[in-house]
């Protein structure tokens, strides 16, 4: 495949976890990549691995809560004159009961998970509309539909992505843009690193497949959503949770 015809994917949160696994997955699928996160060293490591699969990789170090930086990112990206896939993995989890959550923490959570997601969808869809083709993949969570005590802020913002995914699928479908989300269960990344062994064992008991998921388990489903095999699929929230019932 020549570079000009390779699909280009923008992946946020690509420095580690699900985003990093997705970068490797899409590199294996032959895509060129733009990788975004705040840590330049980790991003550089991921980029190097992806290049070994023949991908052209550009890294951008930025904080997605800064809307101006996001605009600059897309001003640079539009010079590529192509954007086929956006996979928005960047995020963090707030594990706090209702009484212990400050409004500024809530605001920060909403800024990265909803505001940045919204702005990314706005900017990416405009580039994709030019080519009448595109694919947006958002990261929801099992807790969005199941709820989780101690995660009311996190689960509510993840649930908001369901409305966003379903509405954008309808709104952007006429210009050839698909919009789907994945809803991971318990995945072994930095995000869940703070869980005690006891808590993990308790959660594994609730997982039908009796194991914690790996970032690659999610990345492969994202890889499918970014492949031609999913070209008639939009407005779906795909659970990747090993049969987790909270």
């Amino acid at each position, binding site marked *: 495949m020549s570079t000009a015809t390779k699909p280009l994917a923008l992946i946020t949160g690509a420095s580690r976890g699900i985003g990093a696994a997705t970068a490797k997955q899409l590199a294996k699928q032959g895509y060129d990549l733009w990788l975004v996160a705040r840590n330049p060293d980790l991003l550089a490591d991921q980029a190097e691995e992806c290049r070994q699969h023949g991908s052209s990789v550009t890294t951008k170090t930025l904080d997605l809560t800064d809307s101006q930086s996001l*605009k600059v990112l897309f001003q640079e990206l539009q010079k590529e004159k192509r954007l086929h896939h956006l996979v928005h993995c960047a995020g963090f989890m707030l594990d706090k009961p209702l009484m212990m959550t400050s409004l500024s923490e809530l605001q920060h959570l909403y800024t990265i998970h909803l505001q940045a997601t919204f702005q990314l969808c*706005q*900017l990416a869809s405009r580039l994709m*509309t030019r080519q009448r083709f595109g694919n947006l993949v958002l990261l929801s969570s099992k807790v969005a539909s199941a709820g989780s005590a101690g995660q009311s802020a996190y689960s509510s913002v993840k649930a908001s992505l369901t409305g966003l995914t379903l509405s954008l699928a309808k709104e952007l479908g*006429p*210009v050839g843009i698909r919009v789907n989300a994945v809803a991971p269960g318990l995945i072994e990344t930095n995000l869940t690193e703070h869980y005690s062994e006891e808590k993990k064992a308790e959660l594994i008991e609730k997982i039908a497949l009796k194991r914690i998921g790996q970032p690659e388990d999610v990345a492969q489903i994202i890889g499918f959503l970014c492949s031609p095999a999913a070209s008639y699929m939009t407005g779906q929230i795909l659970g990747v949770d090993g049969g987790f019932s909270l």
Partner: protein
Amino acid sequence: MTNTEKLQQTFATALAIDINRITDELAYNSIKEWDSTAHMILVAELEATFDILLDTDDIIDMSSVAESKRILAKYDLRFD
């Protein structure tokens, strides 16, 4: 091609109407061809034609051909 000609051509392509129908007075939702989907295509095509990234506020204000010229002038484009 002048910027005015490029603009008219872009409107005609995005709204899928004859270029002769592109007048300054033509406004969003005033004809069935300029609906919300066509508006999305129009914005994307204008950005591609003039190699710019519009601010969201400018997209919201882009309610007629005349308004588009006024807004695009902010991006160092001249329409005579």
